[in-house]
């Protein structure tokens, strides 16, 4: 079975470490916050200028001056700090964020990522995504492995305009956990019940398959 959005987030959360500063993108990445293990301290960075993002507020504590990068009202966790946008991206660009999780339309075997623009369709903008992929060393891209029509999103070359060049090393899809190195995709894990053949079929870029491909553990 392909992973649900929650399961993708759950598997990403296994990559968290105690003391990590983490930036989570909009969509599935946001869900990772729900799966931080109880015995672990993780601080969430929101690029609009908040380190230490808390839960959603209640109706009583809602504050128009306190939002996250998705423009949702939030609260501050204990130990949070606030700063301006240049400082925020100094953290990001300067490589101070330990893990970045974000979505994409396409990723290719050279580590290129396309995530912000489909020519001919509405162009909303890249927001902070280009800075995040350029600045972070440890990035996990989350997305579905293929489109609804079965078109692979793991390509030999991205077809859409790039968000970043050669910056992606790990991709977690609904079918597989994949590492990118030496211009190839390497299959690390498969979703429970998903066959290697199925992953091969839906991966357009060159895929290296080890003898043993373990199932993800939850």
């Amino acid at each position, binding site marked *: 079975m392909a992973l649900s959005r929650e399961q993708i987030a759950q598997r990403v959360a296994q990559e968290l470490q105690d003391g990590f500063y983490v930036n989570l993108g909009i969509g599935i990445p946001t869900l990772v916050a729900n799966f931080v293990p109880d015995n672990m301290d993780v601080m969430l960075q*929101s690029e609009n*200028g908040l380190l230490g993002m808390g839960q*959603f507020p209640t*109706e009583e*504590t809602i504050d128009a001056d306190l939002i996250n990068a998705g423009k949702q009202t*939030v609260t501050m966790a204990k130990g949070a700090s606030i700063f301006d*946008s240049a400082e925020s991206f100094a953290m990001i660009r300067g490589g101070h964020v330990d893990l970045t999780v974000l979505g994409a339309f396409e990723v290719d075997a050279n580590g290129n990522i396309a995530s912000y623009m489909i020519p001919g369709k509405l162009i909303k903008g890249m*927001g*902070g995504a280009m800075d995040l992929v350029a600045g972070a060393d440890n990035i996990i891209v989350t997305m579905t492995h293929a489109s609804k029509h079965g078109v692979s999103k793991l390509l030999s070359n991205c077809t859409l305009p790039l968000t970043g060049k050669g910056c992606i090393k790990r991709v977690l899809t609904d079918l597989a956990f994949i590492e990118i190195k030496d211009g190839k995709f390497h299959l690390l894990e498969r979703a429970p019940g998903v066959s290697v053949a199925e992953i091969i079929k839906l991966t357009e870029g060159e895929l290296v398959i080890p003898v043993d491909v373990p199932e993800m553990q939850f």
Partner: protein
Amino acid sequence: MAGFDKVVTSYEEAMAGLEDNMTVIAGGFGLCGIPENLISEIKRKGIKGLTLVSNNCGVDDFGLGILLPNRQIKKIVASYVGENAEFERQMMAGELEVELTPQGTLAEKMRAGGAGIPAFFTATGFGTPVAEGKEERQFNGRDYILEESITGDFAIVKAWKADRYGNLVFRKTARNFNPLAATAGKITVVEVEEIVEVGELDPDQIHTPGIYVDRLIQGTFEKRIEQRTVQPSSTAAGE
């Protein structure tokens, strides 16, 4: 007004001197921390042909979006503009020029502009459409592009509190681009929720020193929320 006292008493006075075809840098992220009354004054004045530099462009009936129906914006430099139907229509029709700029690059363009740095190298956007036409250079084996900084004829800023000298304190994530915008305007106009007497703010707690501020006005704010997300009171665990 005398000496370092920056306080003006009308929005007309606050935005005096703004003319057609000028560049205006605005603080704010989404609808959070936007100088909403200064934007309304630009609408009222009917200034046209503006180049706006702002992370976003408001929504249809609030924030910078209210400058769209009368075609007051010629060009916008922004990182994300997707919340606005009239914006979309004007952009698709080619009536509005849009220069999409990565958010961190946009912040740094303002910061550098205000700090007298004409350009800077960044890895952000290398190998993407953002790099087109820009100088590229390698440092320590990594590729960077040259981005030019931005200054504006005007900067419009929203802060929480100020003293009469224009020393500013921002509140929570309403800070965002505001301190950067404040440094990058030839004329920087700030609206705040409260003006206190000089000496009442702790110098150690001032986010933006008054040297950057030319005009200061106290206003009242709607502070509209774009994505109202809450949890039921009963399940709130507290952080």
